[in-house]
């Protein structure tokens, strides 16, 4: 048969060149063609943060993943992709996996994060900064749980945990029946994004009554932060601050349109970007205003700078200062007004001042007001958090995730940090009242403490809730919000609605000595391919050769069957 075939081929090649061409080119093409991606399961994964800040690398340094999956229960983890579930995530196991030089870590997050038990959420929130604190060589990914992924996890768990204590035969049987999974990401290696611009927005309301009016600056950063940029929705930190800033802009723009209520203070609103990366937006804004331009509201007569950070929850309010305000200064007036208003109108809010000196030796500034403090501007931050170190400010758990029932007050509140619109509205009202009392100098004019300047209808819950909903509809991590992003343009439009001279400010990191570097490949598609170990192939080859041997014997001895058939049918023939 083969001799004949080779003869045929020989003739074919000799006789006609085109035929060779037709036969061989496709053959070669098929041989070199890449293997198709026909995966058992395909899912989206979100990579852990990767950034450099002041030359210091943070987060995972790798994006490529092509290894077999294991769970932490397996004995050998080296060069394996370790899958963990958030429900039983432990930092020791995570570290153990990294110590054993695992190839990658994939952490499966539950679909409904707000339904998680409180202690797990709290625990994970505290781990987030620890995971980011040091540089991780291998890729770390987060995936949202679904049925397929859960089944992959369960199968991997059974195959990982049952190894080691079995006999050889059992192991052999196990390899034939159990499924392994090869996890493969489709993207390329992560690389630094060059020339990334962080956008900040400013807008103002000009006061009336002469030159050189004092200026009040209201600042909130809009970006969010979490262990994975694509999962950081930042509802409380700092969606609440931004929505409060926009509400204040709306309220005071209303007051400033009437001649009788137009006050002698300039109001400057600043929505800063890169707040979670040492307040880069604010830093550049200050440099632009103080060092480069001749005339700026920031240069002369700033009454105080009020930074809003994480105000959407809790029954406490802390005024963080780096230097206790002196008596007689506008800062001191605001402090007193805040105390007065919270005492007389909002008795359920516990107001206090927290004093913390700026630590210049620290890598990260604690609060946004410290940026202003360094430039000798009187500044402070309002927050319901008592300390800047609290995990709520940088967690992927900080999402809106409010079911429709709990939005109206009923139902369980979610376990993690979240925004309670009622409390956000109350806090907004408190701040607005205190600011108004400072601006119109009401205490010196003898107005009582419980005088309500803004009536119930003026602070609109729907407005606040809508802004928070919109802000948390997409992740707003600094490396995802570029200058064309809808977050920035909508914020700009929104500010332009109430404020004058809305301007953008861009920060780009210095080319030679960048203060911050972001990396791409933060969201990828991961494929889980079902695979079998090499020993399985060998086993299969043995079985197949056995089967073929039986086939060979059967065909060789076909005559037996034939004669049986003949013997059976013979009597029939005779009777015919």
């Amino acid at each position, binding site marked *: *048969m083969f001799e*004949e*075939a080779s003869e045929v081929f020989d003739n074919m090649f000799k006789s006609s060149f085109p035929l060779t061409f037709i036969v061989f080119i496709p053959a070669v093409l*098929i041989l070199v063609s890449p*293997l*198709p991606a*026909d*995966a*058992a399961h395909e899912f989206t994964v979100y990579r852990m943060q990767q950034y450099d800040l002041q030359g210091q690398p943070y987060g995972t340094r790798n994006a490529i993943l092509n290894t077999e999956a294991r769970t932490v229960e397996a004995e050998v983890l080296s060069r394996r992709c370790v899958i963990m579930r958030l429900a039983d995530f432990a930092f020791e196991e995570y570290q153990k996996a990294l110590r054993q030089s695992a190839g990658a870590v994939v952490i499966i997050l539950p679909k409904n994060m707000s339904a998680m038990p409180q202690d797990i959420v709290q625990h994970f929130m505290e781990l987030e900064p620890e995971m980011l604190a040091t540089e991780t060589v291998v890729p770390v990914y987060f995936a949202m749980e679904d049925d397929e992924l859960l089944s992959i996890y369960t199968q991997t768990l059974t195959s990982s945990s049952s190894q080691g204590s079995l006999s050889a035969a059992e192991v052999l049987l196990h390899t034939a029946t159990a*499924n392994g999974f*090869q996890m*493969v990401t489709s993207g390329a290696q992560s690389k630094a994004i060059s020339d990334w611009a962080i956008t900040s927005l400013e807008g103002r309301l000009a006061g009336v009554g002469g030159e050189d009016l004092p200026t009040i600056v209201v600042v909130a950063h809009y970006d969010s932060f979490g262990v994975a940029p694509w999962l950081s929705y930042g509802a409380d930190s700092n969606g609440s601050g931004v929505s409060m800033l926009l509400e204040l802009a709306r309220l005071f723009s209303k007051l400033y349109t009437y001649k009788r209520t137009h006050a002698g203070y300039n109001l400057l609103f600043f929505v800063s970007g890169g707040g979670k990366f040492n307040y880069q937006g604010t830093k550049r804004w200050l440099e632009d205003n103080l060092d480069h331009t001749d005339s700026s509201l920031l240069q002369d007569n700033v009454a105080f700078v009020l930074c809003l950070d994480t105000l959407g929850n809790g029954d406490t309010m802390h005024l963080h200062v780096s230097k206790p305000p002196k008596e007689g200064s506008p800062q001191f007036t605001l402090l007193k007004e805040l105390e007065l208003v919270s005492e007389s109108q909002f008795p359920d809010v516990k107001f206090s001042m927290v004093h913390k000196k700026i630590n210049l030796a620290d890598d990260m500034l604690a609060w946004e007001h410290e940026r202003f403090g360094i430039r000798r501007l009187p500044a402070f931050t309002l927050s319901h958090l008592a300390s800047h170190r609290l995990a709520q400010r940088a967690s992927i758990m900080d999402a809106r995730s409010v079911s429709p029932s709990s939005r109206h007050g009923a139902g369980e509140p979610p376990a993690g940090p979240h925004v309670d619109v009622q409390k956000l509205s109350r806090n907004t009202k408190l701040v607005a009242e205190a600011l108004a009392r400072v601006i119109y100098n009401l205490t010196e004019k003898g107005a009582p403490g419980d005088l309500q300047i803004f009536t119930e209808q003026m602070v609109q819950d729907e407005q606040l809730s809508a802004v928070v909903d919109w802000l948390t509809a997409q992740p707003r991590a600094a490396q995802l919000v570029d200058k064309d992003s809808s977050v920035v343009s909508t914020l700009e439009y929104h500010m332009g609605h109430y404020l004058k001279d809305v301007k953008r400010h861009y920060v780009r990191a210095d080319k030679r000595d960048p203060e911050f570097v972001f990396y791409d490949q933060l969201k990828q598609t991961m494929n889980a*391919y*079902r*695979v*079998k170990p*090499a020993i399985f*192939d060998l086993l*299969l*080859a043995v079985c*197949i*050769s056995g*089967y*073929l041997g039986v*086939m*060979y014997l059967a*065909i*060789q001895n*076909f005559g037996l*069957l*034939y004669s049986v*058939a*003949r013997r*059976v*049918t*013979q009597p*029939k*023939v005779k009777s*015919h």
Partner: protein
Amino acid sequence: MTLFHFGNCFALAYFPYFITYKCSGLSEYNAFWRCVQAGATYLFVQLCKMLFLATFFPTWEGGAGVYDFVGEFMKSTVDMADLLGLHLVMSRNAGKGEYKIMVAAMGWATAELVMSRCLPLWVGARGIEFDWKYIQMSFDSNISLVHYIAMAAVVWMFTRYDLPKSFRLPVTVLLALCVYKAFLMELFVNIFLLGSWTVLLVKAVLTGAISLCSLFLFVTLVHSN
């Protein structure tokens, strides 16, 4: 998975053909070219069938999960063309009955193996993803070899002038079974919701039964005169 896995599947699919070719004595008859011709006829018949199907049975986008019995039945009726093709191959070869049957069936089945299984095996079994379906596909090709041998035998018997009257009915029934086997299998799968391994088993049993019946008929016919 790996090239090795592809080798496994390929061996499983191809070696029974090779063994059959060698052991049935076809190689002694220099039947290689005749088999190739049978294969070419297979290609031609498939082309005609496809044209016919595409013309008269435009794709029916039925409701999800609804099995179109009549449509499928009509479609498998088109497989009658296979019988014609086999008959054509056998009528062009002179020789003993067994020889004619084996040449037609070998050529036919090998052409099918090459055309409809080699490429999926090459592409699929070599991929990273492991799936039993490639092993099943290889087993399936073994079954279809038996199927085509039986079918060719039945066609040969049917077209004989000296076929006794009493044989007419069983041969016709077997012929219909051969043609509608695929349809019947689909019906089973749809009604009993079989798993892929069970389907393979049922297919093997059904094909085995058809082949045994045709073997008995063949033996009776050949040795009766």
